[in-house]
Every structure is written in C-alpha cells, then in structure tokens.
C-alpha cells in the first residue's frame, strides 16, 4: 500500500523532519551537554534536575601541578609536531602532485602504512628504537611519536590540493616573469592555503589526541593531556574527567574558529567558472 497520502500532508511531513533533526541534534550534542553539566557541577542530589553550579573542580584541576604540566606539554608538543610535519610533508606533497618519479605510487601508499597496522605494535618497536637513541622520556621522543600520526593527513590532503590546482595557473605566472620559487610562494601556496589549513587542523588534532604512543614514550616525565586523562578518569571523581574533557576540546575549537575564517573565503572555487 502506498504511503503517499502521509507525505502529502505538509504539516505531518514537517513534523517528521523536525523530529528527525531534533533526534540527530540530541544524539550529537547530548553527550557534550552532559559533559558540560558535569564539568560545572557541585553537588547533584536526587530530586534536582540540574546540579548546583560550581567551579570547584576547575580550581581543583588547575591547581594540580601534574595536570598543568601535562597541559603545558600538550600545548608545546602538538604545535611543534604540526609545524614540523608541515615543513616536511608539504614540499613532499608538492612533489607527489607535480613530478613523476620512480615508485611514486608506492611511496604515496606507504604513508598509509602507519595507520594500516595495530598502532600498539608499531609503538613498541618505535620505543625500542628510541630507547637505543636515548630519546625515551624526552620532548623529542614525544614529538616524533605524534609526528607519525600526522603524516597521513599532511601528505594526502595537500597532495590532493596541489593536484587540484591547474598547471596553467603556475605557467601563467612563469609567463609574466616569475621564477619557480616566486610562483610557488605567490601563486600555488595561496591557492592551496584552504587545503593546507584543513590538513594542519587534522594534523594538530591527531598530534594533540595521541595517547597510546605518548604513554609509552613519554612516561614518566613527559605526560600530555590525553595521557593524563587516563589517570584522571581512573582515580578521580566524575566531574574531574568532565572538566578535563572540556579542556581537551578547547584547542580544537579555537583552531576550528580561526580556520573557518580562511575556509569561508570565496576564492576556493574561483577562476574555474568557464
């Protein structure tokens, strides 16, 4: 039997649409909301729908020396890993996009390999290597392990971005008198910028969220926020975990807000309207 009559009623159709939207919103935002409530909760007793507002867990967290040290470590290591990754990978991505060289495809695929195996095995063997190089429990070691997690994003996204830029745009710059370097920095790079920002965003998040490898390489003195999270969740009351989760998501939120300014710029699709 056809259900056409049902969809023919505009009011019903809209009601179903609105409910579906609300359900989706609740599904996505619900956990975040609970997290926020817990993060600002004092005492929360049975008949009350909402807890008593309190910042005491924030004071508690931010006055804990181990926690602030972890925050500092995260805010130091993740940006370093992201910048290093960009410096190494963006030129490589340009080469992957623009030049034909032997084993190009295999090399490009090899960047998937870090994500193709169970990470823990990879980290153990890397740890063995870092141990020999005296890099265990050092900032360098932590940055290196975070760097590995960023490679995929910093190679694949920029390669696609550069490949999407028509060579004519670069040739036109050469034609009016720009050398290869000037062409790259004044034409290719600005046009690729939105893609590179996306890649940096993903890389930063990958580095910032990295916990497994950092736990192995960084303990006991180089603990980052996600590693700290294990300790906090295991051995402190629930609101502590909530407060820390909010802290963990702050950098990505800030990054997203900054990035969207650039991503909105209309020139992304410009020049291709022929």
């Amino acid at each position, binding site marked *: 039997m056809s259900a056409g009559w049902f969809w023919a009623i505009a009011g019903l159709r809209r009601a179903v649409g609105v409910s579906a939207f609300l359900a989706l919103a609740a599904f996505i935002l619900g956990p975040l909301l609970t997290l926020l409530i817990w993060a600002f909760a004092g005492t929360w007793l049975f008949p009350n729908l909402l807890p008593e507002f309190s910042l005491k867990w924030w004071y508690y967290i931010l006055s804990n020396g181990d926690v602030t040290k972890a925050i500092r470590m995260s805010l130091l290591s993740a940006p370093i890993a992201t910048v290093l990754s960009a410096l190494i990978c963006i030129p490589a991505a340009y080469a992957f996009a623009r030049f034909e060289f032997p084993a190009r495809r295999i090399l490009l695929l090899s960047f998937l390999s870090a994500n193709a195996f169970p990470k823990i095995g990879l980290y153990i063997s890397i740890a063995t290597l870092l141990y020999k190089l005296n890099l265990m429990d050092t900032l360098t070691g932590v940055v290196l392990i975070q760097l590995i997690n960023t490679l995929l994003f910093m190679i694949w996204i920029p390669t696609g971005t550069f490949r999407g830029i*028509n060579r*004519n*745009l670069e*040739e*036109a*710059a*050469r*034609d*009016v*008198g*720009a*050398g290869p370097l*000037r062409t790259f920095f*004044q*034409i290719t790079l*600005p*046009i690729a910028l939105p893609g590179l920002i996306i890649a940096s965003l993903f890389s930063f998040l990958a580095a910032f969220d990295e916990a497994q490898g950092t736990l192995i390489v960084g303990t006991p003195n180089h603990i980052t926020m996600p590693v700290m999270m294990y300790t906090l969740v295991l051995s402190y009351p629930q609101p502590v975990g909530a407060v820390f989760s909010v802290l963990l998501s702050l950098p990505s939120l800030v990054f997203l807000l900054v990035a969207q300014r650039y991503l909105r710029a*209309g*020139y*992304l*699709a*410009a*020049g*291709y*309207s*022929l």
Partner: protein
Amino acid sequence: MARLSLHHLSKQFGTHAAVHDLTLDVRDGELMCLLGPSGCGKTTTLRMIGGFAQPDGGDIQINGESVVSLPPERRPTAMVFQRYNLWPHMTVAGNIAFGLRLRHLPSSAIDAKVAEVLTLVGLPGAAQKYPHQLSGGEQQRVAVARALVLEPKILLLDEPFSNLDARLRVHMREEVKQLQRKIGITTVFVTHDQEEALTIADRIAVMKDGVLQQVDTPDALYARPQTLFVADFIGTMNLLQARVEAAGHALTAGPWRLTLPPSHRPAGAEVTLAVRPEDLVVDPGGAPVRVRRVINLGHYLQILLDSPETGTLRMFTDKGASFVEGQDVRLAIARALAFTGSEVLELGGPMRPSVAASE
C-alpha cells in the same frame, strides 16, 4: 617589433613524434593561426614557443635571436591559455599588475597601465573584482589584458575562446583581431576551428600528426590546398576518384570527363579529384544526378546529390535556384584540383560527361 622563426623544430613524447621537423616564419605584426585536428601538435608547438615544453631538436628565434634555452619567464612572449588563466586569489587588477610588480615599476605607473589595458579590452570597471565574479568571456579578456600589459614581442593564444558559447566566441575573436591590428603585435593563435582560423588569420599553418602541411593565406588555402588532407580539412570538399585515360590526354571521374592541357598531364593513372560544392554547376550538357536532400542554410542551399558512380556529392547554390528532392538534374564541374600523390594540378572546367558515357 618582432619576427618569429621556428627552424626544424621537433618534439617527441615517448616514441610518438608530437612535432616533426617544423619550420615556420611568422612575420612582424602578423596573425598566424596554427590549425589542425586535436593531437596534431599545434598546442605543443605553441608551448615550445612560450617555453613550457622543451624541443628535442631545432631552434626558436625571435628577431633572429635564439630563445630556446630561456625559461618562460625570460622569453618576450605572453600566453593566453584555453582556461584556468586567472589567479583566483587576486583581483583583476592584482592579476594584471603581477608581472608589472616583478619589473619594479612605481605603483602609480602600474595603476595607470592596468587602467589603460582594461579599457583596451573593454572592461574599465572590473579592476577590483575577483575572477569568480566575472563571466567566462570577461575572464578571457582579463587574461588577454594581462598578457598585453607587459608589451610582449609575441602574443600566444591557445584556443582561448573554445570554452565560450558560439555567439560569444565569434564576438571575442573579432575583438581580438581588431585589437591585434590596432597594436600590431605578432601573434600565434592555436585553434582546431577552421572557421575561426579562416576569419581572423593573416596566414594559416595547417598541421597534421606533427607535420606542417601548408602555410598560406586563408584565400589561397581554400582555393589551392596543396595536400589532400588540407583539401578535405578546410571547408567542404567533394573528393572523387578519377582515372587518367591510357593516352594521357583526358581524365575521367565517374560520368565526367576532362581533356587535359599538355602542361597538366599527371604521371600516374589514379588521381583524386577535389571539387568545392560551389564548383558544381547546373549545365544542360552535364551528367545526370538525383537530388536526395535540400538543406536550407539561410542565405544559401546545401544540396545532397546521389550519383550512381561517385556516391554522395554536396553542392552549394544560392536561394534563387529551385531544387526538389527526388528530382534529376544535370551538373558540370566548373573547377577541380587533381591530387596525384606527388603533385597538385589545378584544372579549369567545365567538365561534362564524355561522349561515350552520356550515350
């Protein structure tokens, strides 16, 4: 001003010769069209002139000086590409000024030049717009402006209007022609569209499979193609298989027969006869053919004719003539070119049926 000379230019892609031993001179202020089907090497030739492809052999000279070892940024050439010309992150003024800034001109001079060249291409108000705010035709005008503002010696155009719709394309090529005449710049224009080439070029270089076929004015190319390929490629042409009679005095193509003058006696027995549709004329003594279809093309008629011996023929005639589909008409050939494989003979008619054939 500038002359451009290509000497025995060659370019291989793998084992495939994209351009083979191409020698061509473009005179000062001339608009030369490189014309040919896709894959004939015309764009490769243009890219070698601009410095975007390195020739495997031969030389490119501008005013007698070789530029073949110079990178694109040091050649006095300016290129307008088929598309993806403008840098999307810069305004129109930014696009045009980019090359001027590299030459360290004072900003007042740059502004003046940008305004001047935008007026020249008919977009005086567009300086502060971004490329995506312009239509396709406007974008190509800006690309032309960006090329011209540097006052290059040679302007290179790579099918610049092929992505525009038909009306705009016709309009733009007229504009470019006028602009080119006005500033008298030596120009090489690549196109696969013979109509475009015939309407704007001073001379046309026809290419096929990397080999230059013929360089001539549009009129000469149409009237006296030197190879069968050019005859078939330029305009519409009827190609008829013909035989030279044993004595060598006459030639037979289907029902038509032509006595050959002593100076025009082809060596071989087999020749191909090329006849323009307008050279088929109604003649009471002509050979009978049947009108299959009459196509009204506005100011003239195209008539498809069936002849049992030669297959389909095309004929152009003015609208005054009355043809009815299915009707039999008698036609003579007023003028033909005979391709023997080694030479081309220009034959004046009229060719009528031989006495034997008509009986």
